[in-house]
């Protein structure tokens, strides 16, 4: 990837969706489905996501044509334990964004059965505030066997929503335990929901999900124990900064202030994770949450973190694709040479050894590449 200037907009969308007809390097015919998607057809967007999910033949071409139209949307991840109120909060967030005149895409992931692959996707039930509003595009996905709280197709589906022109994209993960943290690889801002009574302060010491939050939401803040949870979270966050907890003591009950952690973060200080209290089903605290998310976006731009985040992600994406492609190429080559079993047989009979087999299979590729380089 080219080095780019730090200017924040340098990487943004290079042209409005229909400003030119050329798409994707080395390919100037735009897939009609992508044309429809860029023209704002909901059905086309839905179908593109389906193809991505199913990894249907040709889906890679679709994603690659989407790429140059992406980069404008902000992506918020919402994660937390089952029943912590993710879906309800996402519904209210979407409605509030809509009130502010922004369009919203939501991807909500639910688990799939390890036995049949089937799934019941129930997050949509909570989307009561956005009924009939097609500018909220809500898509349910099953994890399709992937661990980590997202489905493998999530990142590409986000690209489709971004290219479609959604301003805000919200990803709701599978109800997460302690270690489903894939969301950090896709979202710009990670919001972790912690309902009251999530355990004692030792839970807060644990690694995993509590390490990834940029924003913590204590949802159901009207329940008993909410203040305590806020206090424990704050303590945990103070430790995380490497210092001794500043807030241990008796002033944890200032429930009046919804936004905490305002340590007047200067440019060099990095982002102070913020705690927001919400009562999602009544919509309380949602405005504050969106303001904090906007602060985090501003921080990402100001500090150059966004640039860093993007570079790291593109690098990772390229590596993953290359690795997968090479794997596939080699699997086919092994098949072509009589299959893995025949190699195994030779190895067992001491005719050859695994290292020699690997060299034998990969060697021609190395040769071919070094010839090309010259």
């Amino acid at each position: 990837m080219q080095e780019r200037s730090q200017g924040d907009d340098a990487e943004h969308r290079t042209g409005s969706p229909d400003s030119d007809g050329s798409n994707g390097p080395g390919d100037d015919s735009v897939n009609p489905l992508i044309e429809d998607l860029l023209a704002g057809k909901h059905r086309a967007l839905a179908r593109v996501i389906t193809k991505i999910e199913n990894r249907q033949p040709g889906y890679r071409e679709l994603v690659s044509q989407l790429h140059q139209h992406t980069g404008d949307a902000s992506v918020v991840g919402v994660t937390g334990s089952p029943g912590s109120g993710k879906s309800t909060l996402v519904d209210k967030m979407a409605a509030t964004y809509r009130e502010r005149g922004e369009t919203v895409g939501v991807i909500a992931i639910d688990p799939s059965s390890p036995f049949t692959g089937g799934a019941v996707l129930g997050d949509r039930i909570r989307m009561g505030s956005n009924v009939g509003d097609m500018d909220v595009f809500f898509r349910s996905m099953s994890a399709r066997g992937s661990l980590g709280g997202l489905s493998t197709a999530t990142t590409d589906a986000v690209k489709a929503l971004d290219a479609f022109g959604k301003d805000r994209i919200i990803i709701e993960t599978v109800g997460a335990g302690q270690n489903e943290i894939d969301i950090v690889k896709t979202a710009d801002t990670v919001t972790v929901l912690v309902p009251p009574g999530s355990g004692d302060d030792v839970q807060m010491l644990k690694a995993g999900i509590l390490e990834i939050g940029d924003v913590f939401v204590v949802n159901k803040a009207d329940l008993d124990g909410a203040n305590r949870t806020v206090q424990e979270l704050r303590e945990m966050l103070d430790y995380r900064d490497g210092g001794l907890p500043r807030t241990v003591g008796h002033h944890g009950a200032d429930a009046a202030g919804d936004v905490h952690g305002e340590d007047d973060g200067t440019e060099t200080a990095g982002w102070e994770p913020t705690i927001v209290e919400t009562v999602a089903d009544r919509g309380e605290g949602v405005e504050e949450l969106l303001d904090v998310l906007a602060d985090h976006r501003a921080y990402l731009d100001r500090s150059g973190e966004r640039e860093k985040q993007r570079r790291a992600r593109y690098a990772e994406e390229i590596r993953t694709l290359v690795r997968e492609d090479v794997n596939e190429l080699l699997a086919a080559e092994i098949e072509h040479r009589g299959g893995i079993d025949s190699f195994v047989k030779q190895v067992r009979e001491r005719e050859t050894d695994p290292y020699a087999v690997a060299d034998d299979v990969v060697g021609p590729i190395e040769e071919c590449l070094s010839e090309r380089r010259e």
Partner: protein
Amino acid sequence: MSVNQEQRTIRCLVAKVGLDGHDRGAHVISRAFRDAGFEVIYSGLHRAPEEIVQAAVQEDVDILGISILSGAHDTLIPEIIDGLTEYDAFDDTLVIVGGIIPDEDEEELKELGVAEVFGPGASMAEMIEFVRENAPERE
């Protein structure tokens, strides 16, 4: 697992529409579809036709199963079908209906484009079989 390996899964929307608070059947069917390996989106109760349309379009489901026990099928189902048509989604969505539907209405619904009507006593196996065989072929 490879990034290129195709894995098509049948997606269904199980929808309750209108003033009809009985969803035990819809739950049972959602569960059976799940166990058959389908991805099932359940709409929840008391949905308006436009909500069902929005969900079916955005979720790009292969199958829309409408459960209706209130007797209002002859107003609600045409509205849903019109909505699907408006978003170019009717042609490749298989619409099936379950519930209490009189025989003469069943004929009418089928003329509108409902693929099949399942009444009381229909077996799960029969329904799953029907869905597997008739799920729209999409390129």
